[in-house]
């Protein structure tokens, strides 16, 4: 949050926040934002409501909850969606670890040392930010096929690391270049080599940016659709996005379990978000302005 310049009167009321909400000059703003919030969440409300219905309840009323709630929709859906979540979790975790390792190491070298060709190599990496996936998708697929990684999770993880490391190196290099030289000097005086000043000085200090890398990698990998769609065809290896698309064709008009499956698959990230929403906002904003 920015520092506000408005001088707030000392709260005399017992519920100053409520009074602030009702402040006359902010009414239009609240009206706009509340309507926007309602429109945004209404589809998800229907999703939630229908996930507890059986078909007669669904045809009777889609708008509100009906009793009894059919929790068995969730048991049914979880049998299918559960394994997709596990696959997504494996791919995402492995990709994040890979991106963190590969990009922080390279960023450290670029930020703290100058060596012949360093600028050229850095530009070579950064220019990839301008290369869209529509261009590389087809040759990358043929490559992964020739490497024998079709229908394996490696076929998702390795290209994932390669794609995400570019922006990560860019962010991390800029941040590490701004770290005070004295800290590295001190480490060197204590006899630390490259590896130790990377591991004990650069990495711990870069935590705010590392968390941004984690979040952008998490969201990108978890949501990726087109690439897994062409690489994975074995149902046991499907990740959530392609699993859901398949699940949709299986359950057609059996809306209760279908919607329960959608809810189950949005829960993992939502739970993470509830715990670290501030980091998410920062990570998303940083990811959005990459060009």
């Amino acid at each position, binding site marked *: 949050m920015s520092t506000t310049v408005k001088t707030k009167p000392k709260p005399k009321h017992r519920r100053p926040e409520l009074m602030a909400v009702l402040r006359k000059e902010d009414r239009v703003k609240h009206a706009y934002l509340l309507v926007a919030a309602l429109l945004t969440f209404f589809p998800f409300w229907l999703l939630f409501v229908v996930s507890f219905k059986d078909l007669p309840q669904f045809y009777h009323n889609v708008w509100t909850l009906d009793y009894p709630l059919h929790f068995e929709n969730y048991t049914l859906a979880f049998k299918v969606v559960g394994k997709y979540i596990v696959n997504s979790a494996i791919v995402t975790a492995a990709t994040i670890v890979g991106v963190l390792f590969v990009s922080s190491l390279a960023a450290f070298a670029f930020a703290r040392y100058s060596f012949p060709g360093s600028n050229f190599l850095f530009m070579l990496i950064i220019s990839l930010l301008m290369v869209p996936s529509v261009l*590389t998708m087809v040759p*990358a697929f043929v490559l992964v096929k020739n490497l024998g990684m079709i229908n394996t999770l490696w076929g998702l993880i390795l290209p994932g690391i390669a794609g995400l490391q570019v922006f990560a190196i860019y962010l991390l290099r800029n941040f590490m270049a701004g770290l005070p030289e004295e800290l590295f000097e001190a480490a060197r005086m204590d006899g630390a080599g490259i590896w130790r000043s990377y591991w004990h000085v650069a990495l711990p200090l870069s935590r705010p940016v590392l968390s941004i890398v984690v979040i952008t990698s998490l969201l990108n990998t978890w949501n990726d659709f087109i690439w897994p769609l062409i690489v994975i065809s074995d149902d046991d290896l499907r990740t959530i996005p392609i699993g859901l698309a398949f699940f949709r064709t299986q359950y057609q008009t059996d809306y209760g379990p279908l919607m329960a499956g959608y809810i189950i698959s949005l829960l993992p990230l939502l739970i993470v978000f509830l715990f670290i929403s501030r980091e998410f906002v920062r990570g998303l904003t940083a990811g959005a302005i990459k060009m």
Partner: protein
Amino acid sequence: MYLCLIPALTFLVVFSYYPFFSAFYHSLFKWDGVNSTFVGFKNFIDLVSDERLGPSTKNIFILTSAGVFFALTLPLIAAVFIHNLKSEKMSTVYRFLFTMPLVIPWVVTVLVWQFLYDPLDGPINRFLIAVGYPEFVRAWLADPDIAIFAIALIGGGGTGVGFPFVAGLNLLVYLSGLNNISSEVKEAAILEGATSWQMFRNIELPLIKTQIRINLVMTIITQLQTFHTIILLTRGGPGYSTMVPGMAMFQDAFEFSRMGYASAIGVVLFVIMLVITLIANNRLRTSTDFDPN
């Protein structure tokens, strides 16, 4: 030193640079992924007479215009309102609420919209019948005249274009811009007795120009290559009524095994996007250095 770079450069060469050059190289070939025959510029010449070109161009225009409209209006208003709320607590609440949809997998969002649009069981048509307007009932995604607009409304589901209209990445980018405005400037304006409209028009709007440009360029580039929503909902149909270049490329590569031709589509899209980025780039460069605090 160079040891630190080996992992990154290996990934870079194998999975980024090799496919990049391979795309350009194979755009000159008839290629099914295994065998390739040199055909010169035939793929590019064939592009001009591709019957999907017309519908694709029209649809990409519709999707891009819709995206630009959504990116530059609703979230901007929301960002300014949230930023200027008297109650800091409420502005945190809104910020939280409007970030939440971004962590919902976009596939879920798009599939929920598919459900909303369902011709028989979908809430939209059921609502229209319930309130007595059965004449407005449509097969939203199966009607060739409407489908592309139904898709434009959903956009990429959380990718920042289309639904959720206010709560996209755009909002976060605007908010970060507004937060960077120094408080002295605004303080001075308040002392001068500026109204909130004058404040918006003369201070906030000029100072978040960079963010507006970022959102504009980002939206255009996203929309030019988008086909995620379309492959999930209509696969370009009915007929070619929702065909877009990305979808055509996907079809050629993975359904018709015409990978050389698909690479040519990719090359053309890349060149268009590169031109747009370069035009915007000299103005943007100063702003892309991200400050994590």
